[in-house]
């Protein structure tokens, strides 16, 4: 079970290091998505399955797709056409692909574990939900106000 944590930790550090040293933004985003997926595996191995699911859905799903949308919206000229060609070459996908395959293997391994073999006590979504809408309901309101401010700000800023 410790293998889940340490393996994903190594993958997270490697992919983050690669992500901040790339020249090309989309290549860096590709590695960063793998880094977020390994962070999700780390959360699961630490007994936080709800946070792991949100990490995949919100971070790797929504936020990274927003980055990609903006990169596609910016019309960077002839250079982007050359870039598009280079993205289609398979060797750019080998690195993230191998690391993601290791994470997939870890996930398959984790799915076969019984509760007794889990290293940590799981804090499931029910416990988080009871806390969230019980003593922390003010935090939910604050988060909603924050997201509303983000929505209004982004709408105002991105207008032509």
């Amino acid at each position, binding site marked *: 079970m*410790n293998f889940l*944590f*340490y393996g994903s*930790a190594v993958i*997270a*550090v490697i992919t*983050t*290091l690669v*992500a*901040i040293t790339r020249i090309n*933004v989309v290549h*860096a*985003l590709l590695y*960063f998505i793998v*880094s*977020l997926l390994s*962070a999700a595996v*780390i*959360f699961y*191995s*630490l*007994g*936080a399955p*709800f*946070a792991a699911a*949100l*990490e995949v859905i*919100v*971070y790797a799903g*929504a*936020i990274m797709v*927003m*980055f990609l949308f*903006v990169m596609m*919206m*910016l019309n960077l000229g002839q250079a982007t056409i050359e870039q598009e060609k280079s993205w289609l070459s398979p060797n750019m996908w080998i690195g993230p692909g191998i690391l993601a395959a290791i994470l997939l293997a870890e996930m398959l391994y984790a799915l076969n574990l019984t509760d007794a073999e889990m*290293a*940590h*006590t799981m*804090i499931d979504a029910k*416990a*988080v939900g*009871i*806390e*969230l809408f019980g003593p*922390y309901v003010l*935090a939910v309101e*604050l*988060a909603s106000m*924050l*997201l509303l*401010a*983000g*929505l209004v*700000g*982004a709408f*105002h*800023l*991105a207008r*032509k």
Partner: protein
Amino acid sequence: MEITLQTIPMQHGLILASILFLLGLVGVLTRRNIVFVLMSLEIMLNAAGLAFIVGASRWGEADGQIMFLIILSLAAAEVAIGLGLVLQLFHKHKTLDLDTLNEMKG
């Protein structure tokens, strides 16, 4: 049933969180492309969330995960505003270089 059954020491999780945070900090300090700076900010926020998850796992409470949820919504709001600013910067200056913002006067 044990409350805080764990085999991974808390220190290892915190060391991992600080390594990831430092990588994000190095990214913010060294990169001049604004998209990379935003991405490094995401790395730092994610590392802070990881530290909270490690705390939640250490004490067997859900509170750390709730802080992680708040950090998650903070990151979503921050990246929406940040990417709006990226679009404006690109429309005005036709570049993603942060150093062009030097010419902003007030």
